[in-house]
C-alpha cells in the first residue's frame, strides 16, 4: 500500500523578482515499511519535499496523498490532526519540549491523541527500553546528551503509531557513535515493527543503511535506487 504519493509536486519561492523552484514536479511513491532517504546536496530540495509530505508547507502545484488522503485540500487544523495521527517527526535539533521529562515528552503525543492515561505506561516504557532510555525517563532534555535526546525524539515520533516517520537530518547534530547507534535502532524498528521511515540527509551513514536512495538535484528527482 502507498503511504505517500506525490504527483507533479512543486514548491516555488519568490526571492524578490526571481522564482526559486525548491521542488520541481516531483512524482514519488513511498510504500509502507520502506526505509528510504532523500539524498542530495544542500539546497537540492530535500527538506522542502519532506515538509510538503508532512503537511508543514503547502505546494505551489501538484498533489500529496498520505495514506490515501489528499493533503492539499485540508485546512490548517485538519493538517495538524493529520500530522498528529499519521506522521511522526524527527528534527535535526531534537526539539523536545524542555519543561517535560523524557517520559512526558513521549506521553505528550498520547495525551493530545486522547489515548486513555491507563495505556500510556504500557506503550511508552517498552519503547524507551527498546531505545536504551530506561532509567532516564524522569530526566528533562537539558539533562540528556544529544544522542539520548534524539532517541527520545524517535520514541515520541513512533509512540502515536503513525503511518510514516519523517526525519529531517536526524544525525546532523550527533557524534559518530551516537549517529550509528540511532540509525541502527531506527533500522531495527523498521525491520521488526515495519515502521516506515523517510529521511532527508546527506550523511553517508544514513545513505549506507537506507534500503532506498532517492537523489534530488535542483528540486528534481535525479535518481531512485532500491537496494536488494
Amino acid at each position, binding site marked *: 500500500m502507498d503511504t505517500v504519493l506525490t504527483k507533479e509536486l512543486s514548491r516555488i519561492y519568490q526571492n524578490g523578482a526571481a522564482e526559486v523552484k525548491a521542488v520541481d514536479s516531483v512524482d514519488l511513491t513511498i510504500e509502507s515499511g520502506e526505509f528510504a532517504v532523500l539524498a542530495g546536496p544542500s539546497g537540492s530540495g530535500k527538506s522542502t519535499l519532506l515538509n510538503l509530505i*508532512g503537511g*508543514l508547507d503547502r505546494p505551489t502545484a501538484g498533489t500529496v496523498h498520505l495514506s490515501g488522503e489528499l493533503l492539499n485540500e485540508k485546512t490548517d487544523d485538519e493538517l*495538524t490532526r493529520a*500530522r*498528529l495521527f499519521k506522521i511522526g517527526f524527527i528534527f535535526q535539533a531534537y526539539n523536545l519540549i*524542555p519543561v*517535560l521529562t523524557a517520559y512526558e515528552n513521549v506521553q505528550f503525543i498520547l495525551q*493530545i491523541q486522547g489515548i486513555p492515561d491507563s495505556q500510556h505506561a504500557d506503550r511508552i516504557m517498552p519503547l524507551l527500553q527498546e531505545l536504551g532510555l530506561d532509567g532516564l525517563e524522569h530526566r528533562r532534555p537539558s539533562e540528556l546528551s544529544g544522542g539520548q535526546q534524539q532517541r527520545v525524539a524517535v520514541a515520541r515520533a513512533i509512540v502515536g503509531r503513525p503511518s510514516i516517520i519523517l526525519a529531517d537530518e536526524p544525525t546532523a547534530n550527533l557524534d559518530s557513535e551516537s549517529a550509528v547507534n540511532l540509525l541502527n535502532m531506527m533500522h531495527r524498528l523498521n525491520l521488526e515493527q515495519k515502521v516506515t521511515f523517510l529521511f532527508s540527509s546527506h550523511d553517508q551513514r544514513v545513505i549506507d543503511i537506507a534500503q532506498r536512495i532517492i537523489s534530488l538535484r535542483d528540486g528534481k528527482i535525479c535518481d531512485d535506487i532500491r537496494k536488494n
Partner: protein
Amino acid sequence: MVIWRIAWRNLWRNRRRTQLTMGAMIFACAMLVFSLGYYDGFLWSLINNATEKENGHIFLARPGYYANPVLEDTVSENISAQLPTAVKEQVKGVCPRLQAYALLSCGTGQENRTQPSQIVGVDFQAELANSKLAGDIVAGSFLSGQQREILLGQGLARKIKAELGSEIIFFSNAADGSIASEILLVKGIFSSGDNLRDSALAFMNIVDAQQLLALEGRVHSHRLFLHNPMQAREVAEQINDHQKAIEATPWQTMFPQIADILQIWFAIQLFTVAIYYAAMALITFNTMYMAFLERMQEFAVMQAIGLTRRRLARLILLESLILATVSGLIGMMLGASLNIVLFYYPIDLSRWLESISWGGSSIQPVLFCVPSLLSNLLPLLAMILLGFAVAALPIWRLYRLKPVEALREV
C-alpha cells in the same frame, strides 16, 4: 492536563523574570486594594463626620424649617407615632434637637468676653446611644443630664476664655417673646475638627433649653440614625409620602458635595484601577511577549507534531492567567490584611497634619481604611482581565505563525 503542566512549568523556566513580574503585580494589586480601602475609609469618615456627630442621616422637622429655621417652628418631642412602620424598622435611633441663637458671655467687667453662638439642646442619653458627639470631648466630660450644663466648642471657649467649670451667661429670646437668660457651667469642651463650627457652637441639655426658650415638650428637629446610611434618600421619601406635617431631609440633600462624590465613586475606583494597571499591563505584557518570542520555534514544533493552534492559544492564555490570578490573589490578601489592620487600628497623623473642613463635614488626619468586597474583588478581577489582555497579542501572533518558517530557523 498536559497543557496545565506545560503552562505552569513554563512560568518557572525563567524563574527570576517570573518572580520579578509577579512581585510587581502583587505589589500593584496590594497597593490598589489598599488605595481603594483608603478611599472607602475616607468617604466613610466624610459621611460619618457629617452625619453621625450632629446631623444624623435624616433631618426631620416642620416643612420649611430645614431651609429657613425659625424658633417657633417646632414639632412634638414624640416623633415615633408619626413614622410609618416600614421606616421604623430601618431606624437605629432618634436624637431630638432644639436649636437657637444666643449670646454667651464669660467673665465680668473688663474681662467679659461675649460671642454670638448657636446653641443646640440635646438629649444626652439619645446622643450617647446614637451619635458620636461625646467622642469629640477633648476636656471635661459629656452632658450628664444635670441642670445648667453646657459644652463649648474649643474655638468658642478660646474666644470667650472659658475653662472647665467657668460660668457662662446665656442670653437669648424665648419663643414666647420673653428674655431667656441663665448662668450655665462649662461641663466639657469639644473639638469636632471643623474649626469654623467649633468656634460658634455649644450644646446643652434639651430640658434646660426647652425651659429657657419656653418650648416645653417641643423640639425643632429629630435626627434619625439609620442602620444603612446609604438608604437615607429612600427612607426620607417614604416619610414624606406618608406624613405631610413633617418634612424629612436626607443627608444627601444636606451635604450635596458628599452625595456628588458618591455618585461618581465607582467611576473614580475604576479610573484608579485603570491608572494602576496601565503600567502593570506593560510589565506583564513584556514578560508574556518575550516568553512568546523566545518560544516561537517551540510552538512551531508543537504544531508540527500535532498540537492545534487552539490548544496552543489555550497554553499561552493559561500562562498569562496563572501569572495574573496567583499574583492577584496574593496581592488581594496582602492589601485586604492591611485594610483590616487600619480599620481596627487607624493611624493618627494629627501630629503632622491638620483636619480640613469640606462640604459640611471634616477630613480627619487619620490613616483609616474600610475593607469592602468591592475594593478587594475589583483589583483581582481587573488583574484577571489584564491576564486576558496581555495574552491577546501573543495569541494573535501565534495564529499568524507558519510552523515551516519558524522551524527553518531551528
